[in-house]
Structure formats: C-alpha cells, structure tokens
C-alpha cells in the first residue's frame, strides 16, 4: 500500500515538476508548481513529518505561489512579449546534464550514509508528536538560528520594500 502510494505520488510530483520547467506560460508553471508542492507535502506525511507537510502547503502553496501569481498578474505579460525559450538542441543538452547530475549526486549519499541504505523503515521517531519534538528542538538547541532567521526575514521585508518602491525621476 505504502509502496504504491509512494510511486503514485512520486510520479505526480515529477510530472508536474517537468511541466513547471518546460511549459511556456507562467500561469501554467505556477499551477503545476502548486501541484508539485502538494505532492511533496503528501510525501512528507508518508515520511511521518505531518507538521512540515502542513507548513509546506501553507507557506509554499498558500503564500509563495500566490506571490508568484500576483507578480505574473502585475506584469501582465502578453504572449508575444514572453521571452523566447531555447531550441530543442539546448534542451537536450540540459536533460543530459540533469541526468549526469543525478548520476553524480546519488553516489554521494551512499558514500556518506552507508548505514541506512537499503534498510526498511524503522518506527516513528519517539513517542511524542511531531510538532512537540520540533518545537522543543527549535526553542532549545536551535534558538539562536531561529532568532537569526527572523532577522533574515525582517531584512528581506525591508529589502523588498526598498527594491520595489517606485524610483523618483
């Protein structure tokens, strides 16, 4: 059951990711991107990361992708003014490069984490709920990075406002 579910989800996620990369119109890209996010969130649930799955949907599918949508509507690009995309030859080069990357990436994982390779799933992490564990870790061990992350967000807000404002001529 779990295996079937994984393959279905993996197929959906991969296909929609392919659509994100290869479709021409930005609106379609965004919609398939949302589908990819949802697929990933479901995979997170499969991996017993329920909190992250929720966050994934809320932050990515909810906030980030809506931001993309807004920008696309704001720029309101016509079909003709969309940038021309590369020719098939170049795409072919891209796909070969991507496969090479996979080939290179995979042995890295096995190189550094041989112990868990090929083993089946152990039980869930601990007895407590996923949210509680994350919260405890985040506010004890990772308190400083957590605060730094909030400053990063603040900086991003200010930066966005500065960059986005209209320049006076």
């Amino acid at each position, binding site marked *: 059951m*779990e*295996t079937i579910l*994984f393959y279905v989800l993996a197929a959906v*996620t*991969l296909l929609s990711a392919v659509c*994100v*990369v290869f479709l021409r119109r*930005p609106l379609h890209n965004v919609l398939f*991107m949302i589908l*990819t*996010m949802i697929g*990933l969130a479901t*995979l*997170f649930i499969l*991996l*017993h*990361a329920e909190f*992250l799955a929720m*966050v*994934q949907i809320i*932050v990515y599918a909810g*906030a*980030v992708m809506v931001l*993309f949508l807004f*920008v696309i509507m704001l*720029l309101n*690009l016509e079909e003709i003014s969309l*940038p021309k*995309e590369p020719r098939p030859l170049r795409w072919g080069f*891209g796909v070969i*490069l*991507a496969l090479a*990357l*996979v080939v290179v*990436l*995979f042995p890295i*994982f096995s190189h550094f*984490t041989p112990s*868990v*390779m*090929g*083993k*089946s*799933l*152990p039980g869930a*992490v601990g007895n407590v709920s996923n949210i509680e*564990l*994350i919260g405890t*870790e*985040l506010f004890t061990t*990772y308190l400083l990075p957590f605060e730094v*992350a909030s400053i*990063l*967000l603040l*900086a*991003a807000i200010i*930066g*966005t406002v500065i*960059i*986005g404002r209209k320049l006076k001529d």
Partner: protein
Amino acid sequence: MVTLEHYLVLSALLFSLGMVGVMFRRNLIVILMSLELMLNAVNLSFVAFSRYLGSIEGQIFVLFVMVVAAAEVAVGLAIAVAVFRQRGTININDISLLKW
C-alpha cells in the same frame, strides 16, 4: 517496500529538473520557480534522512530552508518587478551588463 534510496532518487530527479529550469529557461519568474523546486528537492531529502536516521534535526533544517526560500522569493520577485519596470523585459538574456 520503500527505502531511503527511493526518496533520494526522487529528490535528485527533482533537483536536476530545477537545475535545468534555472540554467536553460529565460523567463526570470520561471527561473525563480525552478529555484524553489531545487530547494524543495533538498527539503525532501532532509525529511527522508530525518525519517531514516531517526533524528528530528532534518526537519528543523527544512524549516530554516523554508525561511530562506521565502525571503529569497520575496526579494527575487521584487528585483524582477524592478527590472521589468526599468528595462521592460524579464528575459535574462537581455540583462547582461556583466558582458565585457
């Protein structure tokens, strides 16, 4: 039976797809989206490792990656809007001031 490798292969494929999008697309907004895709691919492997190593740290990292991704998207889109306003295009081949 689903093993760690399954997730890692999926993650690697998503990452490579995102890479192709970043490297070969010319629409600035799509490039930003592909970047998100790459980050999500990494997130997937973090979560998978967290699960299979029985450690919560992977999930914590995913949270931080999300924070960075959100910040990056906000700033990146702001730049895209500013560039469009300035030069009337979002084709990154037209934005080549670094050229000799």
